């Protein structure tokens, strides 16, 4: 699949960048000259992957935790509820924090916060202490998408933003695949506390890379002048402000929100309950669930790429009435973009002037609404 190539490229560039940073002066880092933005994209991809690993450890370890701590399914449901509630609140506050302090510091704070919360699960002994750790995790994790989208807006020209978003967003699936492969092994050999501790601690490895490599393009010595100019190309001068209140009267807003309201929970259901389902109803051992979950998410990705392609091919700008049923298009004056403002929640869900883009990370099936932003692209591309 061609969609996978940019991911691999981003990953490779990331490795090269590290060695380039230690060995060569920035001007001589030939292969990366003018392409440093893809290293940034690789960092964002790793951040999202780590984010999804942290949130999925609990789902994978549901069985052992219930056994050790004596929870029933309602207790576990309450724990997931705590995460979701904190996540919803975090979307508002952490987004604003990142706007205020900037992406470099803001993302670093969010990563440290949620990594510590993730590690905090390791010392929790009761349902209430798990609720505290879980809420802190949800609150901090909510920062990942506002921060990533803001980084993409800083580092990518408008025409490449959808692709960059699709790439970092693929980290959600990679995280969801890696976790059930690794965590059961850790839990079996070292116990579940170590699974939380080690997954959380990965955040600090990421933090080092981030602090070494991330600057705004204007301040970045690895960013060549021509790349800087390229990033500025076809970006619009000012971003108008769209207020929530302006969106609310539109039926399209409610159609989109209704879709999200009904479809997102299915994604969450799969994320937090499938490991338990495989063990309980199919009798799999904890260490056997990795493969079926890998299959589920790979098929989900195939569906998302196919769905993105299908819906794109169904849309013709001239005849909007033939839009496929699962798309809502919001059009607005062309001077409005999401640039530089991450806390505007609707921006993240309803990408400006949108058409679906069949790239990695575009979602259909249970992902279709959840990460709506990743498969919309600007119609004027």
């Amino acid at each position: 699949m061609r969609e996978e190539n940019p991911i691999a490229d981003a990953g490779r560039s990331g490795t090269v960048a590290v060695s380039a940073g230690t060995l060569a002066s920035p001007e001589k880092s030939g292969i990366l000259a003018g392409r440093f933005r893809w290293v940034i994209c690789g960092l964002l991809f790793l951040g999202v992957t780590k984010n999804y690993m942290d949130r999925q450890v609990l789902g994978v370890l549901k069985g052992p935790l219930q056994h050790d701590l004596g929870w029933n399914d309602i207790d576990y449901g309450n724990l997931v509820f705590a995460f979701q509630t904190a996540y919803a609140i975090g979307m508002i506050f952490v987004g604003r924090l990142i706007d205020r302090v900037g992406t470099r510091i803001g993302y670093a704070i969010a990563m440290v916060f949620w990594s510590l919360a993730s590690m905090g699960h390791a010392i929790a002994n009761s349902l209430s202490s798990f609720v505290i750790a879980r809420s802190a995790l949800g609150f901090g994790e909510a920062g990942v998408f506002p921060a990533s989208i803001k980084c993409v807006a800083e580092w990518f020209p408008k025409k490449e933003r959808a692709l960059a978003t699709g790439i970092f967003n693929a980290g959600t699936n990679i995280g969801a695949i890696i976790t059930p492969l690794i965590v059961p092994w850790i839990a079996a050999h070292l116990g579940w506390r170590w699974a939380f501790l080690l997954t959380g601690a990965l955040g600090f490895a990421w933090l080092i890379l981030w602090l070494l490599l991330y600057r705004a393009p204007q301040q970045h010595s690895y960013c060549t002048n021509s790349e800087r100019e390229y990033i500025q190309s076809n970006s619009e001068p000012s971003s108008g402000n769209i207020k929530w209140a302006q969106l609310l009267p539109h039926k399209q807003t409610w159609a989109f929100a209704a879709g999200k309201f009904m479809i997102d929970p299915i994604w969450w259901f799969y994320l937090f309950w499938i490991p338990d389902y495989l063990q309980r109803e199919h009798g799999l051992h904890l260490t056997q669930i990795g493969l079926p979950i890998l299959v589920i998410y790979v098929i989900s990705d195939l569906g998302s790429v196919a769905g993105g392609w299908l819906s794109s091919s169904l849309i013709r700008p001239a005849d909007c009435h033939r839009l496929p049923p699962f798309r809502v298009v919001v059009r607005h004056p062309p001077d409005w973009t999401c640039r530089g403002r991450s806390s505007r929640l609707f921006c993240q869900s309803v990408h400006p002037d949108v058409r679906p883009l069949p790239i990695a990370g575009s979602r259909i099936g249970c992902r279709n609404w959840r990460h709506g932003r990743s498969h919309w692209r600007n119609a004027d591309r």
Partner: protein
Amino acid sequence: MAGAIGGMLIAEIVGHVLQWTGSYMVPFFIAASAYLVALLFIHLLSPKLIPAQIGQG
């Protein structure tokens, strides 16, 4: 945001249903039908999926 609130609800629903029935039948039924219901709602709210003209009307 709507999705996050939906996520809060599903956590409680699945927890309670599993506790009562001990089976994943009902959660999977909900998961399977949610797409059809969402599709229906979207068509009721915006039958022709005409782009919204924000800030112009």
